[in-house]
């Protein structure tokens, strides 16, 4: 399966839930308040959030008036374009990789799938001919280091590590030195999950970020926030807070293979303009795919 199909199959449930309901709702009904209310339910149910939903619907109403649309099914292409607009300027995935040593710092709250995603990322870059190293910066959660080591074995990538309870910044520092010594192309750094309202943990992250910038001044710094697609509106706060301490360069949306729709990334893109770079669509090594806004939005509206 090529990545295109995989992304599609990952998004299939998103698409299906979304489009099934849209079809139920719309059809050739005459456009009235009820149609907009039903559309509102669909967008809210996909985790787009109140503000984004309201903004999209009011834009949609304006367009419908301007274009003198009459039936509900005519609204879909317009709504699709409106959503697509919010992804304008979404950078392609590899933009920051390939010019000298790249350090990828992977951050996020607890349980979003950081370690799993890092395993997949390592596999991806290894497969594209890069020399990859990983640093086990989650020194807090029990057995997080072991988990990364298993992924390292699967992908065939070395893991720089210390013991549980060690200073995370020191592990990352070691990782950087090792990456320099072995002239690795890419160093991927795991970090402990942290809730964004824990000041001391966010400070720790800031410190790690500072060390990377200091130790690899000429390199490329990627800071990727891993977001769980099942997360609701709190994802916006997560993106804001992590961006404040570590200058995010992108978002990885995981667990899109469930029934969650991940619609909150639309609000994040709109509010913070952080590009969505990857989507996680399963537990296999290959189940990490570049995010394509075209695909994402097309998939939402297919078959309508």
């Amino acid at each position: 399966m090529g990545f295109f199909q995989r992304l599609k199959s990952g998004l299939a449930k998103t698409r299906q839930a979304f489009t099934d309901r849209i079809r139920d709702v719309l059809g050739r009904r005459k456009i009235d308040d009820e149609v907009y209310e039903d559309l509102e339910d669909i967008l809210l149910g996909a985790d787009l959030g109140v503000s984004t939903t309201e903004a999209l619907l009011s834009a949609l109403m304006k367009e419908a008036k301007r274009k003198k649309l009459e039936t509900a099914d005519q609204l879909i292409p317009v709504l699709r374009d409106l959503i697509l607009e919010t992804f304008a300027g979404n950078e392609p995935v590899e933009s920051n990789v390939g010019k000298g040593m790249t350090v990828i710092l992977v951050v996020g709250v607890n349980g979003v799938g950081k370690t799993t995603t890092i395993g997949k990322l390592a596999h991806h870059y290894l497969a594209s001919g890069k020399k990859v190293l990983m640093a086990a910066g989650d020194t807090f959660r029990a057995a997080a280091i072991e988990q990364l080591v298993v992924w390292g074995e699967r992908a065939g990538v070395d893991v720089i590590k210390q013991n549980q309870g060690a200073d995370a910044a020191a592990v990352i520092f070691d990782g950087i030195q090792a990456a320099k010594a072995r002239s690795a192309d890419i160093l991927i750094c795991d970090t402990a999950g942290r809730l964004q309202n824990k000041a001391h943990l966010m400070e720790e992250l800031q410190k790690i970020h500072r060390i990377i910038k200091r130790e690899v001044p000429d390199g490329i710094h990627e800071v990727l926030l891993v977001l769980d697609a099942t997360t609701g509106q709190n994802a916006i706060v997560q993106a804001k807070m992590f961006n404040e301490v570590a200058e995010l360069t992108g978002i990885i949306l995981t667990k899109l293979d469930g029934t969650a729709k991940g619609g909150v990334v639309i609000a994040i893109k709109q509010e913070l303009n952080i590009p969505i770079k990857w989507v996680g669509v399963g537990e296999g090594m290959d189940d990490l795919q570049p995010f394509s806004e075209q695909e994402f939005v097309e998939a939402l509206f297919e078959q309508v």
Partner: protein
Amino acid sequence: MFDTLTNRLQGAFQRLRGKGRLTEEDVKEAMREVRRALLEADVNHVVAKEFTDRIREKAVGQEVLQSLTAAQQVVKIVHDELIELMGGTQEKIARASKPPTVVMMVGLQGAGKTTAAAKLARYLLTQEHRRPLLVAADIYRPAAIDQLKVLGEQVNVPVFSLESGAKPQEIVQSALAEARRGGYDYVLVDTAGRLHIDDELMHELDDLVTIASPEEILLVIDAMTGQDAIHVAQSFHERLHLTGLVLTKLDGDTRGGAALTVRHVTGCPVKFVGTGEKTDALEPFYPDRLASRILGMGDVLTLIEKAQATFDEKEAKDLEAKIRRNEFTLEDFLNQLRQMRNMGPLDQLLGMIPGMNKLKQQLEGKSIDESQIGKVEAIILSMTKEERQKPELVMKSSSRRVRVAKGSGTQVKDVNQLLQRFEEMRKMMKMFSGPGGKRKMRGIGDLTSAMQGGSNATQTRTHRHKKKR
């Protein structure tokens, strides 16, 4: 955690409060605001709509609107409905008539099952004085079994596992035999995270249920979950007949609407909530208290319970006597600080005190830095015993102040500030212990402003003595 929802609701009712008698239109307007607030808190949109419709009906249908205290009455209706929505009373964990009681933890990947299982084991061991056995049945996620073993060691509960290659069915079967042999009265099964639409893995859970016939099947669900919570909860419930829910990561700043949703759609009670990364951060869930908290009425009961669990009663009496005699010393102050820290993060505690929500927000931007306490601790510990008893000694001597500052890695300014605040506090406490309710209230205001001043002034400097997690 529910702060923003609280604020929204309060905002909506502020307008009603100013009014006296209400019209139907007033209530409608307020309910629109409530619905918005619920949606932003990730309450499912269908649930939110039903909820507000029901309140509107009740409010409009009764003599409420004619009453002079209409706004308060509407708030009461919302409060009652919130409790209702979250399931009325607190529900305890089941206990089988013939041990062992089997508890299965199920849920999506990353919800926090393994951590919750270990916390529950600790809770059963320390609070209920049971003998639990943890069972590692997550054979899929790399190092999941190791994780449970490490956690088991931390909480002093044995962990049952089999060599790699064993199926979850075999693991559970053998664990049950082991539990009977070892005389364990609880068996806590940590299952692998799985998608509710993954038929193969859901089938595995069916098997485990058949083998173990658990008294409790607890769905562990992340409090940050969005609209999808409804699908997850429904699917797991239809398939397995859940008996309860564990809501995790409530120590974040999520508004936690998932709590309202899952309870409502499954009819299963939320039995526990996870409120931190440490293994003791698991609390029984009290819907009435949480409803009060959402409405900004504070959660005094939890606070009192926490205080009771932490403070020694005799010590408290001694302290009271000391305060009366104005003998409160820096040493006592330090003890107080330490005990307070044992009760949990400061900002969490503040949220439980009625009326303190506003203060909490003011502090939030500046963040109540726990390291502040560490700093105060360092300063006090750098004083001699005598100085701690008689702070005036330090106050009067600049060489002593310089020495203390050096010893604690702070600046003289910090030492001065601490001494000043301590003096103010001592005066206030004297007042506190005297008769008269109003004066006491004023005391609380002073105390909090003193705290705030402190965290402002010292914020920009780097701290030593960081609090380790």
